[in-house]
């Protein structure tokens, strides 16, 4: 646990010094969400229907934006190797880095989404479920995305390749995340979808750091 905190604090300190990157992903989220009404039309009933899906897809893309940088700078200046050689378990250090990524990229999305949800005429009940679903889902996005980031570390065309690798794996989270909000607006309970999101989160927390570490070792070789 201590190991995870060490890596988490380090990444937060570095992000604090590099302020600009965090905000860019947020702006991207806002801009992409605004594109959909512009492309489809502002009819309120239709916006209500597409709102959850649009917000979720935008959250996916915004997370993807921040992923290549997760390991790239540490890899470039050699600190990633030092982490691999540390007596502390590498997997826990990696878990700490992923946690930092979520705090910087995922959590702001969770907090900003209700505001954007208002643009799509979602009612408070739906907004609440949206926040909860994003709260459970965005860590899964960071965890699975980290595997892709580790696999494509230093590979040419990395960013787009990362998207190709990771987006199919994001599909379950997207389906249940958007589905939770839709269930809420249909008047059925969203507890089933939220529990499944919780289960996906538990699975991802358990397996993803391990897979990411394996991929990082392959990339460091």
């Amino acid at each position: 646990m201590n190991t995870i905190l060490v890596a988490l604090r380090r990444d937060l300190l570095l992000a604090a010094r590099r302020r600009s990157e965090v905000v860019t992903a947020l702006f991207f989220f806002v801009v992409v969400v605004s594109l959909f009404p512009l492309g489809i039309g502002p009819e309120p009933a239709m916006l209500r229907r597409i709102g959850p899906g649009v917000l979720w897809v935008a959250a996916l893309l915004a997370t993807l934006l921040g992923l290549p940088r997760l390991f790239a700078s540490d890899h470039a200046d050699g600190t990633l190797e030092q982490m691999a050689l540390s007596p502390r378990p590498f997997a826990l250090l990696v878990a700490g880095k992923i946690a930092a990524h979520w705090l910087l990229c995922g959590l702001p999305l969770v907090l900003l989404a209700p505001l954007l949800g208002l643009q799509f005429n979602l009612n408070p009940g739906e907004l609440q479920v949206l926040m909860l679903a994003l709260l459970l889902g965005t860590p899964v996005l960071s965890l699975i995305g980290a595997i892709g980031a580790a696999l494509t570390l230093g590979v040419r065309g990395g960013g787009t390749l990362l998207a190709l690798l990771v987006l199919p794996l994001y599909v379950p989270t997207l389906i249940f995340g958007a589905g939770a909000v839709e269930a809420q607006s249909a008047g059925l309970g969203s507890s089933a979808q939220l529990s499944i999101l919780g289960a996906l989160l538990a699975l991802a927390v358990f397996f993803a750091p391990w897979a990411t570490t394996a991929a990082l070792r392959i990339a460091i070789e």
Partner: protein
Amino acid sequence: MMEKTSASPWMRYASPATFYPLAGKLQPWFAGLAALLTIAGLWIGFFVAPTDATQGEGYRIIFVHVPASWMSMVIYCAMAFWAGIGLAFNTRLSSMMASALAPTGAIFALLSLVTGSLWGKPMWGTWWVWDARLTSELILFFLYLGFLALQAAIEDPKRADRAGAVLALVGVVNVPIIYFSVKWWNTLHQGATISMTKSPSMAMTMLWGMLLMALAFWMYSIAVALARVRNIILERERHADWVRGAVENA
């Protein structure tokens, strides 16, 4: 790679040098079997199986569509299996096998999508239906593309093998989750009206036809994989002496 002279004689074939001629000998047999089974399967499919009451003659394309979907799944599992073996035991040949299987699997996934689309057009008037199986097949196709793209983008073959293995293993774990989630999504949005998987009654002949075609595709996949792995072996081991001999004699 640890070239162990172990007790089992089969371990000899873990070396690319010894597997190469074996693959060459086996390949024509599988190709022949594939051809025979294809003829048998298509004959049943197009001539023997009865006309379907609701769908007319157009349904016969399922004799290609369903076996192709099955094979795309089976090949993904086989690919993940070989890639996993290659990663765990550091055996080059296993990873080469995984790389050899991937394009065939992708082709079957694409075939399944195209035939599914051709089947759907006369029935529902649209070229694409967001049916649970077709959508899962689409995502499986993306997973194949991801694997191929990753291996193509990494220049070092060792790293490409191992990164691909991690991706394939992560993919194989996710495929059931993806299938389940897509199925749930489909029932939520479309109801039970449209389904390509349900046939009111599957006559025995139809089942036989599909099984024969599935076996045919399986033999074809093995034949093609053997041919492809031979090429990969030649390419990777091109600096070894035996390769020069083999190429000269070819």
